[in-house]
């Protein structure tokens, strides 16, 4: 019998992923990765040592399904590969997506290593995305439910990883998942979807960065596009390109963060119209098929999780770096975020936005 290791977060999606994998005839082992201590996320320490409620929810579902269940201690790895990188990126004026690093280093690397040790053929997560096996290898495709599609945060998967992964929810709508959970009587059938970054539950990411790095951000100048000083800011980590709220300055029109000048510790302010750019440089590109194209490629590209995807031309300048030029200017192309390239429903690949480019 084929065996599968199910990554269970305690939420409804991964619980149903576990259920469906079992229904598909796999012998299953459930697990939860303990990623951070409450103290890392500024949650008062009190009596617990981790996000215990979620772990207990996952355990309860695994017990109901009568599958072995383990908690994997991954706090050190998570701190090093996700939280620290998150802090470093903000301190360098970029806006990171830590979920992508978690997928890259934790779920599909460290967890896959555990699966090997436990002799599991597959690992299973509750991601909304689809994997299709073809005679030219595996394809990574958008989920059937466009509102839940998570293919954007999975662009780093390799052919070897895709061969080992199951995404049982890829073909389902979210309502179907909730209905299945209700029918199974799972404790978490009505649990809210997770929204924020898991280790920043209150949304105050700047405070997490200060706690983790011990650095108090240095206040500096707000400047306009001409370089004139127009106010004082609270430290670069509090700002991201495109941000409007919490600036506390008036320029006669709505003011937006248009850029972060790290060496000068300055935040550049402009109008909405100043945020539009057509091109950017993308680095660290993973090409899903394993063979990056030699010729320029037409694609639709997403520059953030909620971006609808827009037509663009992708031109590689070396094996993992490319220039991405949109047909129409895009608002707030932000360094640190991922750019992911699609051909219709199929993910071609993706990488990290290094900087915008003027034409």
């Amino acid at each position, binding site marked *: 019998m084929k065996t599968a290791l199910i990554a269970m977060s305690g939420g409804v999606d991964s619980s149903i992923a576990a259920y469906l994998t079992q229904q598909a005839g796999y012998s299953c082992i459930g697990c939860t990765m303990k990623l951070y201590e409450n103290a890392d996320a500024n949650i008062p320490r009190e009596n617990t*040592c*981790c996000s*215990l409620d979620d772990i207990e929810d996952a355990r309860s579902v695994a017990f109901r399904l009568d599958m072995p269940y383990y*908690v994997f*201690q991954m706090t050190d790895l998570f701190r090093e590969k996700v939280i620290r990188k998150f802090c470093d990126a903000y301190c360098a004026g970029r806006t990171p997506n830590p979920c992508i690093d978690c997928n890259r280093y934790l779920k599909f690397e460290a967890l896959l290593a555990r699966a090997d*040790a436990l002799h599991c053929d597959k690992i299973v997560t509750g991601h909304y995305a689809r994997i299709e096996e073809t005679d030219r290898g595996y394809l990574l495709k958008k989920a059937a439910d466009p509102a839940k599609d998570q293919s954007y945060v999975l662009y780093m998967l390799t052919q070897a990883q895709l061969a080992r992964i199951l995404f049982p929810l890829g073909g389902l709508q979210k309502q179907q998942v909730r209905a299945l959970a209700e029918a199974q009587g799972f404790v978490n059938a009505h649990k809210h979807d997770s929204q924020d970054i898991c280790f920043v539950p209150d949304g105050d990411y700047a405070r997490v960065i200060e706690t983790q790095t011990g650095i108090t951000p240095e206040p500096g100048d707000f400047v306009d596009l001409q370089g004139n000083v127009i106010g004082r800011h609270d430290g670069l980590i509090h700002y991201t390109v495109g941000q409007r709220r919490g600036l506390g300055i008036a320029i006669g029109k709505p003011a937006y963060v248009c850029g972060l000048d790290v060496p000068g510790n300055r935040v550049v302010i402009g109008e909405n119209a100043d945020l539009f750019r057509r091109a950017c440089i993308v680095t660290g590109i993973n090409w899903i098929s394993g063979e990056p194209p030699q010729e320029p490629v037409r694609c639709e590209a997403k520059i953030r999780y909620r971006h609808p995807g827009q037509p663009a031309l992708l031109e590689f300048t070396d094996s993992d770096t490319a220039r991405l030029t949109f047909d129409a200017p895009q608002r707030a192309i932000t360094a640190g975020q991922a750019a992911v390239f699609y051909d219709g429903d199929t993910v071609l690949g993706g990488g990290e936005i290094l900087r915008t480019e003027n034409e």
Partner: protein
Amino acid sequence: MIYADHAATTAMSRAALEILLRYSGELYGNPSALYTFGQRAKRVLEDARSETAALLHADAKELTFTSGGSESDNQALRSAAAIGAAAGRRHIVSTAFEHHAVLRTLEQLRREGFSVTLLRVPESGIVRAEQVAAAIRGDTYLVSVMFANNEIGTIQPVAEIGAVCRERGVLFHTDAVQAAGHLEIDVKSQNIDLLSLSAHKFHGPKGIGALYARRGIRLTPLICGGAQERGVRAGTENAPAAAAMAAALSECCAQLPQMQEKLTRQRDRLIEGLSAIPGSILNGDRLQRLPSNVNFSFPGIEGETLLLLLDQRGICASSGSACASGSAEPSHVLTAIGRDAETARGSLRLTIGRETTDAEIEALIAAVTECVTALRSLMHDRSDNT
């Protein structure tokens, strides 16, 4: 299944179980009641107290029943701290590898204004009495050093440390949760003022333990309420569990020499067998350790993964203390004896008991050897590929 986690908990002995069931069913009266039926339960409770105290060479009046080791540790430290504070002596000496019941209480006391010195532990896992002597200051009132460590099993020179404390006029508490029923305990000759024990570590029931406090040491209640346990521990007394604990401890003490001999032989065979695994490191002194304890590090291997593989083969083992989530925590004990993070992560604790057979020892050696070898080859495959 092979059960090799006796330091975590033990199976109840038949005698203890029978007493627990019989008294719970027949003698359910409240020991504090006026009527004769209640007083019969009171008598069971007091007999249990006398029997337990005698096995420690203590007087019955010096023994308080608690819910277990953690409560006993908390109450011992809090009581001694309160007495010391009243005399203006707010310094406490302990060690870096105590059980969390001690360490967390000390952290709390520190926040309340006490000053705490945690002694460094040598690589052998044995704290020296001279270290204790050197750490005692004019304002020291309490020394707390465990009898035997719960992870690496090393036995501390309790009698010597106690003698140092006596000489310097300092109270001496020892967490004897791993020692009671397994090592010779004599609170008088070992100069112990306060001692914690827990029944489920020596084949008694869970949820009961005891705190020995030398006559004259006033305990501070952690739980306020009725006047049970001479006013230092409120709550209806659990006479059936106390009686079962006494029976279990009595049984262990009666078998002590033979059991130590059997366990030592099996432990040494286990250490010999696992030492043959390339790169394996024994944690804690080779000889001065509990007859039941074996603790190895296999550098480069995730201890947690090793435990899962052993679980798949029906072997119950541990890597030390567990977190509330049931995940394996990095061991503060191994860190304390100077193991680097990688070595501390790759640790395995096997603790055997009276039911452990020679065949099980051989099966353990074979299983651990196979699992470590498998994990190592997996790691090599991965580093070859990248």
